[in-house]
């Protein structure tokens, strides 16, 4: 494996967890879904790198495209603001704010 290929793989592999984390922890769900689509495309590139072009084709169309469209459609109907917090973390966040003010 050439050095450039190695670096390329490293960048792709490092990008994946970063994107995954931001998909799950971005506050706005629309942004999260947009990131998820990017995540799907990144995985599709990785399939190509791993010599799995068959999987790459399906991933790009289904994993990124169709799933993304499904998610966007759902958000369009139920709203995209993730304001739901479990009671505990809500009160925790509230108290954090109070601490800051104090």
């Amino acid at each position, binding site marked *: 494996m050439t050095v450039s290929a190695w670096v390329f793989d490293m960048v792709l592999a490092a990008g994946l967890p970063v994107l995954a984390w931001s998909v799950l922890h971005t506050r706005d769900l629309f942004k999260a879904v947009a990131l998820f689509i990017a995540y799907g495309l990144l995985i599709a590139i990785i399939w190509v790198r791993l010599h799995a*072009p*068959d999987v*790459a*084709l*399906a991933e790009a*169309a*289904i994993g990124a*495209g*169709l799933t993304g*469209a*499904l998610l966007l*459609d759902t958000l369009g*109907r*139920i*709203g995209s603001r993730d304001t739901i917090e*479990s009671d*505990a*973390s809500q*009160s*925790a966040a509230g*108290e*954090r704010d109070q601490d800051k003010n104090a």
Partner: protein
Amino acid sequence: MLKLTAIWLTHLLPGLLVTIFGIFLLQAVIALPAQPVGLTTEVQRELPNSGVTNPVTAVLLNFRGYDTLLEIAVLLLAVVAVWSLHVVPLRTGHARYVAETPVLAHLVRLLAPVMILVAGYITWIGSARPGGAFQGGSVLAAAMVLLLLASMIGIRPRQRWPLRVVAVLGLAVFVVIAGGTLVVGNQFLEYPRNQAYALMLVLESVLTISIGGTLALLFFGAIPETASFETMNDEG
């Protein structure tokens, strides 16, 4: 104090558990043999007898065709399951989006035919090179979703029957072929050797249409028939 317990319960404890789990998983992945173990040699040995030259297509449609049959069943099941929920279907059939965004319309007009062509090509090439029914079907589905979004195609209540047929087509043809192999005295799903290629090509074409149609139906949401049960907080 309360604050600490709250964060501890909702975030830190799961984080800790997941980290421990991740370490176990990492250990397990490291412990995997460094040399590949798998079925590469078996697939290569039998590939000439499979009727196709793309090993992935051979595995999907021939060696492990039974799994693929069940997978097509999963797709139909998903359609039935989604229909049984009676959600509000995607709004189509009027040119709202198209009028508002002419760029989208042009783009779709340009893209969709190309994508449908590509889908056909991918399916056809699948016997020898990367591609096949799943890949072609998913590209076809993407094209149809674009058309649906741009309201260039719509689904109306009158079209219930054709929709059902599209949804069921792939599974029905697969089952007929599978039953056929039993009737001619072969093992279940054992294609006659000299017709394997032709049968698989037929199967692939039907599956492409069916997979594309089914996925688009999943996107559309509801059976275009009944009043929806999703009333609250919805545009109705």
